[in-house]
């Protein structure tokens, strides 16, 4: 692994080695804008095609019309895209400039100076004051707090709105703030990466700040760019990553653009039209050359030269290429971009999707994929916070085999528990202590004396609140010293170590020293399977397992509590291992987990706490409606199986017993999983024909094996099953499942609310984030963000469906009108000696493409084929969109045929020229009736062209009116 050595406060050494702190998110500079932007635009096939056509048109020998008729729209389209890019880039430049020119306090040559943020160099010591934004990634070396603590708000980084604590490294503890100017040392840290949850580094200070030990640094010792310093007077840190090399800068980047199924189809159809065009060009080119050689030389008035240039045989095909170039409508891209951004605006503006409680409107961050919403086949949903409210409330508990809260459903009001607390039952007291101590909650005492809690985990907050309600109040948390007020008596506990929660360990522990008795305890809480197997020998865990089972049946989340007394020597010995593990640079996470394992055993199990998470409003109805619309639901949750199944039943995910059936896939080994999988697959195949609701349930462990070794069987299962519940899955497994469904050519929508759903959301065709209580992380990564799960119904059935219908019409209409005018040109060429004469003049052509046929159809973005109410009542109608019934090769063939038919219809009317004298009187403006009549017999090419144009305008706009379903005044 590459490393970087940062010499603190050393002006000579850090010079020029690393980039300065100038942030640049700009894509272009003033000089390279034009070439770079043009290059980017021309990397698209359509644009290359249009450019080629436009260039060919500059050759007067072959151009049928004024080159302006192609150059005009082309330049306009390019100008629009370029202007948009330039505007976005200019805004980025402005925000960069603002950040770069912000004044910060930096120590230079031992003196505190005010400099601009862009001049910060790696190794500089920065001073921040309360509410300052952190200008680059820093390692904390001092704060105003005696304990070396400071608080940061990281919402700009990860979307989490709670305050996080950061501490100074142990080596810097106790250094006087006056001396911080002079501190020297070296930080050994990895090269810049984008992992905002990891920072595995070491710090060694130079004399006179003697501390020869390597001091480990973690993410807890850093202040990352774009965070805000809160509740701390000042903080001081060393810049380690600057400019675009900060964690934020590295994780920034343009996410892969998503292409809708419809765009892919339109591209395919464009390709087909292109091939058709080539065929037409070749056929007409050949015919033209043959006619020229046989007939045209006899037509003396044309005066064909006998000898032409060597490229003569190419001229007629190229002319036809230009004549037919309008077959691919140049305006389609612009029109589609325009209507797509309107669809997005309709979503933003929808009053019925505003969450009344928080006032959050729906938002379409990705404006390009609204049509896909109407074609969703699978919805993969998170459970906590998505289906449920993520408002945790402590409801029940079981302490040493005694159930509390079973009668009235609320343990906090259970008289037995209250009396047990009052009488000081030791198990209950210890249970409450774990609730209050074993967490990372920050109590914030307001001036009036009331205490509020800031927590990263909703569960912990619920537990601390419940403990406070039961007179075990967490009063203060100063890094090491916890202050608890139990029935008026203040107790102090010294936190020796925190063994943090990770999704692999599924438990967290704290090592505390009771200041009163001086004894050391390990207090743990975690998932049942992470705690119960580690019970001390001889303790019966069955009653706890039963309690867990019972609570899960009720759809409650459970946490098991355990403790163990530790001898001083054991702790000292372990502490060294733990410290070493924490300072490794390689595989730190794994080493730490191993070290934790050494301490977390022989637990004395205390009890089980059950926390309720209510379902959001309207979730069952929404799921039922969307299932009727033919959408399959998969629930992916980190929760345990029973809870997941209960929630699934209560929100109509699966029907209860006789109608629905749950098939479990479990097993710990490959063989077990394989057998289980095959059994389920067999049942699935049998029940496929029955009108039965079959769902499979799989846990993370079995899923890991199934995905690794039995991918084929599992894929078949995924196709057969309309519903699935995957519990205990990790964020990466969620993403893998999305990937799996996508590989089966299904349109997937992933919906979630938390950081653990981000990968799934980014992976899916459509990502929907719920701007919920777990922060905005998911909502930021998502294409659409909504306030509540129930808005999904409207998003898909109304917005998705309308968008699909409208785009299907608009895109095919664009091709229709281009084909129509092309067919007229083609048929006219047969009666003009296959010489490539254009029937229409440049102005008519341009007006046709830009004015007459492009602008009126844009009205179709307001078109509603069925009312919103009808669609909501009959969600089955969505099947039409899902199956792509409105835009596919056969509907396109229909439009193709329609344009051919309309062309022949017009040809019939105007083609029989000799019969046509009468109609001229009706159409052509002329000075007097008599002269009009006199010219009755004469048709001229100009009037013929004008007549054709007007007919074609009527025809195309009539078809448009015919296909629009409702008319707005």
């Amino acid at each position, binding site marked *: 692994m590459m490393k970087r050595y940062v010499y603190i406060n050393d002006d000579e050494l850090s010079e020029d080695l690393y980039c300065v702190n100038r942030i640049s998110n700009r894509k272009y500079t003033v000089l390279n804008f034009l070439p770079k932007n043009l290059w980017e635009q021309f990397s698209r096939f359509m644009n290359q095609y249009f450019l080629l056509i436009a260039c060919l048109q500059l050759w007067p020998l072959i151009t049928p019309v004024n080159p302006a008729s192609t150059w005009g729209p082309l330049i306009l389209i390019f100008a629009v895209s370029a202007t948009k890019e330039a505007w976005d880039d200019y805004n980025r430049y402005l925000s960069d400039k603002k950040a770069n020119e912000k004044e910060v306090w930096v120590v230079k040559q031992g003196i505190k100076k005010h400099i601009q943020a862009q001049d910060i160099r790696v190794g500089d010591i920065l001073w921040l004051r309360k509410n300052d934004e952190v200008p680059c990634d820093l390692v904390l070396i001092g704060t105003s707090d005696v304990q070396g603590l400071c608080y940061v708000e990281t919402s700009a980084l990860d979307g989490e709105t709670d305050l996080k604590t950061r501490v100074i490294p142990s080596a810097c503890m106790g250094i006087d703030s006056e001396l911080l100017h002079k501190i020297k040392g070296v930080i050994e840290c990895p090269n810049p990466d984008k992992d905002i949850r990891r920072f595995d580094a070491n710090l060694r200070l130079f004399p006179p700040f003697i501390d020869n030990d390597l001091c480990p640094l973690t993410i807890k010792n850093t202040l990352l760019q774009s965070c805000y310093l809160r509740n701390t007077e000042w903080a001081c840190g060393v810049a380690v990553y600057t400019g675009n090399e900060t964690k934020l800068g590295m994780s920034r980047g343009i996410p892969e653009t998503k292409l809708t199924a419809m765009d892919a189809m339109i591209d395919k159809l464009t390709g087909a039209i292109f091939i058709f065009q080539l065929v037409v060009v070749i056929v007409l080119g050949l015919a033209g050359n043959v006619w020229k050689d046989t007939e045209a030389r*006899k037509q003396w008035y044309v005066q064909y030269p006998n000898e032409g240039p060597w490229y003569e045989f190419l001229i007629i095909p190229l002319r036809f290429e230009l004549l037919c170039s309008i077959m691919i409508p140049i305006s389609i891209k612009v029109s589609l971009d325009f209507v797509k951004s309107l669809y997005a605006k309709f979503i933003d503006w*929808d009053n019925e999707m505003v969450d009344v409680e928080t006032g959050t409107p729906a938002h379409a961050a990705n404006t390009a994929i609204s049509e896909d919403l109407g074609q969703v086949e699978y919805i993969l949903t998170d459970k906590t916070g998505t289906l449920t409210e993520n408002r945790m409330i402590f409801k029940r508990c079981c302490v040493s085999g005694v159930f509390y809260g079973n009668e009235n459903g609320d343990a906090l009001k259970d008289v037995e528990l209250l009396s047990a607390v009052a009488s000081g039952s030791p198990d209950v007291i210890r249970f409450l202590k774990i609730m209050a101590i074993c967490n990372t909650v920050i109590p914030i005492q307001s001036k009036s004396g009331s205490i509020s809690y800031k927590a990263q985990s909703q569960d912990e907050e619920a537990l601390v609140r419940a403990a406070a309600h039961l007179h075990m109040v967490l009063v203060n948390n100063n890094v090491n010293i916890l202050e608890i007020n139990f029935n008026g008596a203040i107790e102090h506990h010294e936190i020796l170590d925190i063994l943090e929660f990770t999704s692999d360990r599924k438990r967290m522990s704290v090592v505390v020293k009771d200041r009163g008795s001086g004894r050391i305890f390990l207090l743990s809480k975690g998932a049942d399977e992470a705690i119960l197997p580690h019970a001390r020998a001889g303790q019966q865990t069955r009653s706890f397992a039963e309690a867990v089972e019972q609570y899960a049946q009720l759809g409650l989340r459970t946490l098991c509590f355990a403790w163990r007394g530790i001898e001083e020597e054991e702790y000292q010995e372990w502490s060294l291992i733990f410290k070493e593990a924490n300072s490794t640079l390689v595989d730190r996470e794994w080493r730490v987990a191993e070290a934790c394992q050494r301490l977390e055993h022989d637990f004395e199990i205390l009890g089980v706490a059950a926390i309720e998470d209510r379902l959001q409003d309207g979730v069952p109805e929404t799921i039922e409606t969307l299932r009727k619309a033919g959408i399959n639901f998969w629930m992916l949750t980190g929760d345990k199986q029973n809870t997941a199944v209960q929630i699934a039943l209560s929100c109509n995910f699966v029907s209860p017993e006789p109608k629905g059936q749950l098939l479990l896939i479990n097993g710990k080994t490959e063989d077990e999983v394989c057998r289980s999988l095959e059994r389920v697959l067999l049942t699935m195949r049998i029940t496929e024909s029955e009108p039965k609701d079959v769902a499979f349930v799989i846990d993370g462990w079995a899923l890991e094996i199934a995905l690794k070794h039995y991918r084929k069987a599992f894929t078949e299962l995924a196709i057969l099953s309309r519903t699935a519940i995957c519990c205990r899955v990790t964020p990466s497994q969620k993403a893998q499942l999305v990937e799996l469904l996508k590989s089966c050519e299904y349109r997937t929508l992933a919906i979630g609310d938390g950081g653990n759903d981000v990968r799934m959301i980014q992976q899916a065709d459509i990502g929907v984030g719920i701007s919920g209580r777990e922060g905005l992380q998911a909502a930021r990564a998502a294409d659409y963000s909504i306030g509540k799960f129930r808005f999904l119904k409207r998003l898909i059935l109304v917005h998705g469906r309308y968008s699909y219908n409208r785009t299907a019409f608009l895109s095919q209409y664009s091709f229709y009108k281009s084909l129509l005018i092309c067919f007229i040109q083609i048929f006219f060429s047969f009666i003009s000696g296959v010489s490539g*004469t254009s029937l229409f003049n440049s102005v008519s052509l341009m007006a046709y493409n830009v004015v007459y046929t492009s602008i009126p159809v844009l009205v179709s973005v307001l078109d509603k084929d069925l009312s919103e109410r009808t669609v909501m009542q009959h969600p089955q109608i969505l099947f039409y969109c899902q199956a792509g019934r409105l835009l596919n090769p056969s509907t396109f063939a229909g439009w193709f045929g329609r344009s051919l038919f309309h062309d022949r219809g017009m040809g019939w009317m105007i083609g029989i020229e000799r019969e046509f004298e009468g109609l001229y009187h009706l159409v052509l403006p002329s000075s007097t009736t008599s002269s009009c009549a006199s010219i009755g*017999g*004469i048709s001229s090419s100009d009037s013929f062209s004008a007549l054709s144009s007007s007919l074609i305008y009527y025809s195309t706009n009539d078809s448009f009116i015919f296909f629009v379903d409702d008319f707005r005044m």
Partner: protein
Amino acid sequence: MFTQQELPACKPILTPPWVITAFVSVGIIFIPIGLASLFASEHVVEIIDRYDKDCVPSNYTNNALAYIQSTQTNKTCTRHLIIPERMKSPIYVYYQLENFYQNHRRYIKNRNDYQLRSRAYEFDVDDCDPEAKTERGPIVPCGLIAWSLFNDTYRFSLQNEVIQVSKQDIVWKSDQNHKFGSNVYPKNFQSSGLIGGARLNQSIPLSKQVDLIVWMRTAALPTFRKLYGKIEVELEANQNLTVLIQNNYNTYSFAGKKKLVLSTTSWIGGKNDFLGIAYLAVGGLCLFVAISFVLLYLLKPRPLEDPSYLSWNINPAGLSN
């Protein structure tokens, strides 16, 4: 809120009574129009006489090209036309060319509108190759179109009494006033090299050269008629009209046909059955469709809003409910 508003909208549902009413009314409107047009067209008297073949002397029948290109041969040709019905004045005289591609790409653009409009642009001969210039200067009017001006002439007589052909009002006013200049006189026209068609009188400005103006308004199709002039007398039925044709124009090299057309007009223009037939056909079709819908509506009625007709119910692919 400003951002969300409902636009008033109407949503016509095509119920059977509506559709039937619409078809019936189209039928009722179209059929009388069709009948009237057909009737008017029937009253137009039209005489068409193809003369290109018959005007070639018998000894040149197999070598018509040599006949038309030779300057020695006698090009005069006499035709006798019997008037089938009484023809009211004015009688329009057209020449009709077939298999003549005025819309050919090399031909249709081979002119310069600036030069035609004003003397100041005399030297503007862009697009006129190969008929742009001579050694003596630019050709006015330049280009292939003017160069190939039709040069057959017709003289009509009734029992040795000459009938005048008027060239009044045979061109578009806009052409005469705006497109062909009154100060532009022919210059170097048909003066050297290959001689195409008619020559022009150098002392008459282009705006007065009506035959040229008619010819320069190019036809869109390879079969076309151009107005030659008007006969301002009435012709009675069975009268024998003698036409003296100067058969100068070469259509023999490309097997083109030349026809002389005499026609009266009515309010729908010249003879044109198509418009009436089209109206009758569309009107009749609409009535027929309306009647079949009525029968269908009476014999096999179908309730509106029956969801079982929707296709997802017919083909519930992968859907259990």
